[in-house]
């Protein structure tokens, strides 16, 4: 049994300590918005926030998560889809299949929290999530829009 704090609530999970946080979220906590894409921290589909930073949850074992760590998933990013990144994504119709988008949005939100007005170079350096549908152009525009730029 481990205690972790997810989306503002402390929950108890019955899972092996080696289980990646991704699967704890998806299978033990029914938070399926966070996606599995590679399992080796190579694609970003599983990105969540741990204490505000973007973390690839497929490579973070449950035993490495402290009870005091604040985990936020896509389900907890905002109450009603009103986070600036979600709103920008809505305005620009960013998602195609959408599968990568939870991770993309979480990565973008973490970037903006740290760098409120990111440059294209900041985006290139910080956003390495894979989108096979190829939404990158709109993702970039969405980040600028969420930052208050015009895109």
């Amino acid at each position: 049994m481990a205690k972790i704090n997810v989306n503002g609530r402390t929950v108890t999970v019955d899972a092996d300590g080696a289980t990646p946080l991704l699967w704890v979220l998806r299978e033990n906590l029914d938070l399926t918005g966070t996606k599995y894409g590679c399992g080796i921290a190579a694609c970003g589909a599983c990105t969540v926030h741990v204490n505000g930073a973007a973390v690839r949850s497929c490579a973070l074992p449950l035993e490495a998560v402290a009870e005091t760590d604040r985990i936020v998933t896509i389900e907890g990013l905002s109450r009603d889809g009103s986070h600036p990144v979600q709103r920008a994504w809505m305005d620009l119709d960013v998602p195609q299949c959408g599968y990568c988008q939870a991770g993309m949005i979480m990565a973008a939100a973490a970037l903006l929290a740290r760098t409120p007005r990111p440059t294209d170079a900041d985006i290139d350096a910080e956003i390495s999530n894979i989108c096979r549908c190829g939404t990158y152009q709109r993702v970039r525009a969405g980040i600028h829009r969420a930052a208050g730029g015009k895109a």
Partner: protein
Amino acid sequence: MTTNPTRTINPTRRAFVTGSAAAAAGLVLGFTVPLGRGGGAALAGAGHTDEITAWVVVRPDETVIIRIARSEMGQGTLTGLAQLVAEELACDWSKVATEYVPPSRNLTRGGAWKSFQTTGSRGIRGSHDYVREGGAAAREMLIAAAARAWGVPAGECRADKGVITHGPSGKTTTFGKVCAAAAGLPVPDKVALKNPKDWTIAGKPLKRLDTADKLTGKQVYGIDVRLPGMLNAAIRQYPLFGARLRSFDAAKALAMPGVRKVVKVGDDAVAVVADTWWQAKTALEAVDVVWDEGPHGRIDGADIAAMVDEGLDAKDAFVGNKAGDAAGAIAASVKQVQATYSYPFQHHATMEPMNATALWTPERCEVWCPTQSAEDALAAAAFAAGLTPDRCEIHRMHLGGGFGRRGAGPIHDYVHQAVRIAREMPGTPVKLLWTREEDMTHGAYHPVTQCRLTAGIDDQGGITGLRVRISGQSILAGIMPGRLAGGMDPVVFQCLAPKGDHAIAYSFPNLLVDHAMRNPHLRPGFWRGVNANQNAIYLECFMDELAHAAGQDPLAFRLKYMKDHPKSRAVLQAVADKAGWGRPAAKGVHRGLAQCKAFASYVAACAEVSVSDGGVVKIHRIVAATDSGHAVNPQQIEAQVEGSFVYGLSAMLMGECTVKDGRVEQRNFDTYEVMRIKDMPRVETMVMPSGGFWGGVGEPTIAVAAPAVLNAIFAATGKRVRDFPLKHSGLRLA
């Protein structure tokens, strides 16, 4: 796939209305081909909306549900199809919801929704007429019901945004108020479709209908399916195509936490069923498996290359396009130019790995899965279930990418396996999920080919004859041999065909295009853009070579051979003009062009590229144009064009599946590299619908992505890359 979809337009239509359904659901409108049984009007089990199939459902609360037969995998077809129906229905767009039609319902209703195939970029181009007719027929019935209630001629009434108005009196009512009455009326035999010029919903850059849930984690994909009592399965499949399971020892795995069962799946896979997928996957690693490697265990990439290489000079080949006497003309020319290109295996790499959830009992089987081809998924489920298709059901989930991997042909292996596993646990739903590694090594790969092009050149630098020899793998031979035409695979000739959706967009007096079929053991598949991808590289890069050999401008050189191809000329000229072709680019920046006709659309691109002395390639900007005849949602066409560059350039720059000991070597995204946001050029898309035809959108542009960039790289470096991916040529992205 090149062929036009075979379908019947204007089938015999028949209302299907049942009292209970009409009462429960308001109006259910639509039409169907005559039913095989039951006389048509009575829908078995009709009693609530979900069990009644039709294109349009109108509810008393004014909600309009538009039924969708094709699959949404990101390409926006769901929204586009709904726009087409809503346009003719004249409903309030803000009241529109959508719903998938299940394939078994299509079977029992005699194919009322025709094809579910979401392949070949034909979601819209293959169904625009009959879905619009479905909307128009519904509108007429709603108007007729209102007119009848008012005692006025229907011809005096019109519908707009879900409101019906009687012109002379000014009386109004709404769809929701008359839907029950309309349900009892006959479906009109003939309906007139609007002139696209008058469209107010279709043709507009409306927002997608399926975005909100994708921003909050609420969208349920196949991988997210949860059913009461559901267990989870992980699978280990044959390590190489042709291998078989000899034996396995599950003792260790069975003792591990959560494990319920270890199951042999067919004769080439073993699966662990556990409470959670992570437990199943962990336990699977403890299963010792002995494989019988079969005949392919010693095949390496070099063997495949040699096999394909041999075909370049082979005497026998299938002729795909022939005009005049290419060989004679080339031989008689003052100069000959020849080049050989090759294109490797590629993987679809959908972001959502293969998965399916199955619930089996001796009487019935249900499957929840992502599929581009619900009919094929149903067939796979029924076969694996040992049941007739009418006892099976496919619940389609939004796809986390398709790109052809979940498309036509017997490639629903994941569905088949899920049902086989579920059969071992009757009454318990089991979700099967492949690891990325299983997904990567059990694909339906973009086929491997080489191409030798030979041209004869006259003293003006003009082309006297062109010879195109393709050697390599046939998708149809690999997965749909029944579709071969006398042994020939017509799909091989995309963008090089004499006519049709993939006609070559040049006219040469002497031309010979043929194919020496050489099929390696890897399973091929339709990979977004299919054979247009490499064929456009072959032809468009070679045209560039010929232009440079003749010392002529690549645009002017191409246009000389495009006199009979006005639509192709128009898109090519458009990208050249917008990109500033003929005017100097920024310092160090060079341009390249490409055009082709694919999936019945005309596309072109101009790329702006710089290459540093160290071989670092930077793609600055792409100007692209698409003429798909009609443009149902221009902003979604832009999205497809933008995405096409990511897909096409990922393959050209870095993607390849290599073979060692018969196995695909790439196992995950660390070795199968794809573009990321830092690699993404700025894409400027021109949507140029010229009317009069319906072309595809999701795939055509991929074909021009690579050659435009390659021709720009040549302009920048003088170096012609003919083997892919580019990373082997000493060039790389920043």
